[in-house]
């Protein structure tokens, strides 16, 4: 089973991101379960969403406590939420940022992860450029398809985006997702 936890803020589409991940997995004939952990439903409040992907029926309903991949849609959450809780040592960390790990103040936590497991992607900038809105979710799940090889194909992610957002908005998000897939890169501490 591959387990994903998405940290975002209300309005950033973390829940939709998890849902699209599950649809992408479904399109690859896998079983998937996506669900949110709602707090106060307001713009800007911390939001957590989960997605599990497996080749057999998924029965457990507990939150994702030990994620294989952590998607951080807003790096300011590092200061207020225990984002790293339960992240496996060989887990992936994918951050929506243009900053370095030092600038984010997480070089120590990131250094505990296996080599090649920390990725950054300017998902918000790409969304503004291609969608006209600061909605990083499509780019983030595309970055996951790039970073976590063998979990999901980009084509499935694109198809899931089109299903969730039919028409022009979906097409724009698919372009943003492709750009995020291409520009996602492994990041390590410069020290």
């Amino acid at each position, binding site marked *: 089973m591959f387990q994903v936890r998405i940290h975002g803020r209300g309005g950033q589409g973390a829940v939709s991101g998890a849902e699209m991940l599950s649809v992408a*997995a479904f399109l690859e004939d896998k079983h998937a379960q*996506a*669900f949110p952990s*709602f707090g106060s439903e307001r713009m800007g409040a911390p939001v957590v969403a989960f997605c599990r992907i497996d080749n057999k029926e998924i*029965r*457990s*309903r*507990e*939150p994702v*406590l030990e994620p294989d991949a952590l998607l951080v849609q807003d790096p300011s959450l590092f200061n207020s939420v225990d984002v790293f809780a339960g992240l496996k040592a060989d887990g992936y960390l994918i951050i929506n940022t243009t900053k370095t790990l030092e600038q984010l103040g997480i070089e120590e936590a990131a250094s505990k992860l296996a080599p090649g497991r920390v990725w950054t992607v300017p998902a918000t900038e790409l969304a503004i450029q291609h969608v006209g809105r600061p909605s990083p979710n499509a780019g983030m799940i595309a970055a996951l398809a790039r970073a976590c090889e063998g979990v999901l194909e980009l084509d499935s992610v694109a198809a899931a985006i089109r299903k969730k957002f039919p028409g022009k908005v979906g097409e724009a998000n698919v372009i943003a997702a492709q750009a995020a897939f291409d520009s996602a890169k492994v990041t390590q501490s410069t020290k």
Partner: protein
Amino acid sequence: MLKQMEGSVAVAEAVALARPEVICAYPITPQTHIVEGLGELVKSGKLENCEYINVESEFAALSVGIGSSSAGARTYTATASQGILYMAEAVYNASGMGLPIVMTVGNRAIGAPINIWNDQSDSMSMRDAGWIQLFCETNQEAVDVHIQAFKIAETLNVPVMVCMDGFILTHAYERIDMPEQEQIDQFLPPFNPRQVLDPAHPVSMGAMVGPEAFTEVRYLAHHRQLQALEVIPKIAAEYNAIVGRDNGGLISTYKTEDAETLIISLGSVIGTIKDVIDVRREEGEKIGCIAIRSFRPFPIAEIREACSKAKRVVVLEKCFAVGLGGMVASNVRMALSTQPLPVYNVIAGLGGRPITQKSLHKLFNEATADTLEGLHFLDLNKETVERELERERLEGCSGAVAENILRDIGAVAASKV
């Protein structure tokens, strides 16, 4: 047809397959997506011959439902939490008048303190209101059980409440095998009401009944619930024959045959329990679980039979009667009154607290060692409780409990006034 979709949207599609003629809608988290989904199906024309009525409250939602069902229309509504409390009088009226309304409850805690998250206190508050209550483990079960609910209700002239865990199911995207319209049309004939309000042939319904007849009317309500013990499995079998899925019935069992420890629960937590059971089975432990699918009527005989070889029973439930303990455990103890085996009662998942596999393993360790208390609160923070009791001992005006606890755990920084 296989789809990956949200539980609420799946339930909306399933209800639409049953061709309801009146839907009374009032939003309350976490069931809102269901009635929104149905609203879209009506507006788009996909669900035909259905009047979608926006009402001003939950009391109105079910009151309108009582009217439309009395007039012979297949009627659906949905609610949760404080919503079902607000419609409580109508809940009793619907069953008392024998109206086969189907209502979803997206299970959520009841305040105060206000809490939007999942537990099953709302449905359980109406457990004795004369409705059939069916609990769902998965969204696939919710789809299948909703469709069966209309047939059960209309066969017995009893309203049916379909209970599904809020957020955990209502907001979960998962794989759904949606039945085809032709299958459901074959399974579920048009509603043929036993009683109809018709201006051309005026009658009274819900008339006053005095001491001379009230007991008999009530007894018949009980009798119909006992009939339901046969009707519910029969309808599940009919559904299985057409749709090909064995969802429904009174209980479901998992690895119970040789089980010495039996976990009894209801709703979505059964899935987590099954995963824990598999791990423990690999280590050689004889453990299994029973999902109560029908809580009303309560399947006494089935539970007795399923527990006949067990050495101990653990009833895990997401609600409790303050001052007593779990309602489900009380009912299970009644069913097992002739079998001398320990029944441990565990209250878990209140107000959305996650029920984790880790906590379940610890719990089942204590249960199999027979060191568990008779009434246990899973993951209760006893230190926090003790500190509040200490404050109450020391201070005459120690303040509101809920706010004190929030301050104690650091969830709010606000200082005490």
